[in-house]
């Protein structure tokens, strides 16, 4: 029998070696940092109505801010544990890299250079944007393709001008350009009737429309003649943090797809559909691998609702922006929003 025990012992030793391999740490710098600090620092490029704006009490609101709240809810279960900043210029990447900021919720549009050169990583698209047209209802146009013989206010010098040229050339339509140096000038010029239409990115047009005395008298046409992707950006080299932000965003989209809203999130805990159960953390555990609570997705949705709700809250008809979902609709509704499944 002693021979047997010796054998057993040596086997156990060999096996222990194998098991030792199963225990290895994972790095999680940003998350730890945020946890230690107790709140999340988000930043957007600049304050822009609908995306990020401060009310009279200094409280930030907007789409970007909600996205940030969502991330905070994912981490802390509490959407208020954030600090929001509006940063200008290229310093935002420096701030991100130095750790002054944890996530940029709206950076400039996603481009190759930004993605590859700044030590930053785009996690995904939160907002599909592009150059669009704002016209008065009175013009009677419901589509950009109906525009003909119009004067268009546009920023000078950028690609916007070229795009308009291409667009109208391609449509065999005629137009008059009214170029300006600055975005704020466009609004003033349009309001003053110096042009019949404004062409700028959708996010700028919705800001212009809000500021108009009677927003409902104006319409942002659904077509986009360029493409711009806006989305959260994180530092390179921290996959965990990258994934936290990415999957917070995807949670919002997936929740809309399966019909989870801020209102029904708790009642759906008893749902039977596996896809819903997984998002709400009733089945499976998708949070722990990210260093989060298993129910983090439910927390996100409790805090800010799903993507559709967020969008309606900030760009819906009642906001004065009245920005159609367009590309930002779910893929099932003809839009571009698509998130990989939670499973």
């Amino acid at each position, binding site marked *: 029998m002693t021979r*047997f025990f010796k054998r057993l012992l040596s086997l156990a030793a060999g*096996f222990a070696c194998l*098991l030792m*391999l199963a*225990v*290895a740490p994972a790095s999680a710098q940003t998350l730890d940092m945020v946890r230690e600090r107790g709140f999340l620092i988000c930043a957007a490029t600049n304050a822009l109505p609908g995306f990020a704006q401060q009310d009279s009490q200094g409280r930030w609101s907007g789409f970007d801010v909600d996205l940030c709240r969502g991330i905070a809810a994912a981490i802390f279960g509490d959407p208020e544990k954030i600090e929001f900043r509006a940063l200008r210029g290229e310093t935002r990447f420096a701030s991100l890299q130095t750790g002054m900021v944890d996530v940029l919720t709206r950076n400039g549009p996603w481009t190759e250079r930004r993605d590859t050169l700044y030590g930053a990583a785009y996690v995904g698209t939160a907002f599909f944007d592009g150059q669009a047209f704002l016209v008065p209802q009175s013009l009677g146009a419901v589509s950009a393709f109906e525009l003909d013989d119009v004067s268009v206010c546009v920023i000078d010098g950028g690609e916007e001008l070229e795009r308009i040229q291409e667009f109208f050339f391609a449509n065999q339509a005629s137009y008059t350009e009214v170029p300006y140096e600055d975005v704020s000038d466009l609004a003033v010029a349009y309001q003053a009737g110096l042009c019949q239409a404004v062409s700028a990115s959708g996010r700028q047009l919705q800001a212009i429309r809000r500021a108009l005395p009677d927003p409902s008298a104006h319409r942002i046409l659904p077509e986009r003649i360029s493409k711009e992707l806006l989305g959260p950006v994180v530092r390179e080299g921290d996959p965990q943090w990258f994934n936290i932000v990415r999957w917070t965003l995807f949670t919002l989209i997936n929740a809309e797809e399966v019909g989870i809203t801020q209102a029904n999130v708790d009642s759906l805990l008893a749902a039977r559909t596996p896809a819903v159960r997984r998002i709400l953390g009733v089945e*499976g555990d998708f949070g722990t691998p990210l260093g989060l609570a298993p129910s983090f997705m439910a927390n996100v949705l409790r805090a800010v609702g799903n993507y559709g709700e967020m969008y309606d809250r900030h760009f819906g008809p009642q906001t004065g922006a009245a920005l159609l979902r367009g590309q930002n609709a779910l893929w099932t509704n003809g839009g571009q929003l698509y998130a990989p499944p939670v499973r």
Partner: protein
Amino acid sequence: MTTLDTGPAAAPRVSFFNDPVIRGIIYQVVVAGLLIAFIAWIVGNTAANLAAQNKTTGFDFLWKTAGFDISFSLLPWSRASFYWEAFLVGITNTLLVAFIGIVLATMLGFTIGIARLSSNFIVSRLATVYIETIRNIPLLLQLFFWYFAVLKAMPAVRESLALPFDIFINQRGLMLPRPTPDQEFTWVMVTFGLAVIVAIALSVWALRTRTLTGRYPRQIVLAGKAADACITFLIAFVALLVLLAVIFPISNAPMLAAILAVVIAALSVTRFAALARGVLSFVIAFLILDTAIGGMFSSLPGFVTTAVSAAVALVIARVVYSGALERPPSEARFPLALMALIVIGVPALVYWLTDATLAFEVPVLERFNFRGGLQLPPEFVALAFGLTVYTASFIAETVRAGIQAVNKGQTEAAQSLGLKEGDRLRLVIVPQAMRVIVPPLTSQYLNLTKNSSLGAAIGYPELVNVFAGTALNQTGRAIECIALTMLVYLIFSLLTSVIMNWYNARVSLVER
């Protein structure tokens, strides 16, 4: 090949390095050091790799929902089950197929091993061909063959091959009726258990009495005689019933069969017992042969098969008859029939008395598949079959070697003492052969269990497939899953060696 002789050559005494003890220690320290360094290197690499890939590790995943389906499981399984349940399902599926494979392979292997030693040329050659063919072809290939080539030849679900007793064979596997016992049937099961215990106790008592006093207890002998007649009657009744149904379909066949069976049973207690046995064996052999030959050569006309079967059955009857003539009187025989009657009859009595019912859930063809019943998927059947066929060829060789290892002199000595064939085998040959057979047999059992892991290749959800395959894949925990899988096999192996050590210690011959 020289040793590491690096010590100073001019040293007057035994050089430090040439001291065998010290040199041994140095060797060992070096080896241990190398080993530790190697392990550290691997652990370090792994940790670095895992960290670089930000992979999560640990066994927490075992308590998460698996989310996949397992096609065949003895334990309750749903997609909401946890990974540890998947682990258990894998183990039970492995054990199930291993157990069935072991039982069948043992039976087949012993038969073939003994057949190989047969003095009959055809029988021994057939066994040799079987062994030499099967064990020289990789098991994996055989499994593929049984699964893919044979599966293709199986009928589709709707054209299922229907066998008697609601058994169906098709591409979806083997569908059997599943017994669904009711409440009262528990009593039958309990009685059955008790009857088995009683039968064993009775056997032990009878044998002990036989040893101590030289004869079986009188009561037992009497009861044995009665039981003999009883069993003879039952067998005769069934056989005759079938025979009558096959030959002349007459209306009151049961009555006639019963009468004839009573006659045979009555004969079996007189001195014409041998005749009764001969007749009975003729009927049974004829029935089996006629069915088998008719099935094998469907193109032959009926009367040819009947004639051939009758002729062969006649010879068999003759063999049985002369064997029966030489049977010792019932006083000197172990009352096997009595034990059988107790084990079967008592529960049957209880079944009848308690009015229990044993319904069978019959597999029924539905829109796609059979539903209900006991369904054995073809993966399981192919794996169990492949393992059985393959392992049996090794077991057969083990058995042959074991029997051959018993010196011929042992048989002669036993013969010269007047021991009869049965006693000779039971008391002298088998105990010695088993001593030689059991250790390699056990390692064949272990091999079979390990080989069941090849079920992964044909989709049988055993441990490697379920856990090191699907679960590993859905979770990505490679190290954990493989470690657990290997641990299970390790435990099987250790358990086997514990049992073997115990057995070897028990049976090892005491030598000078």
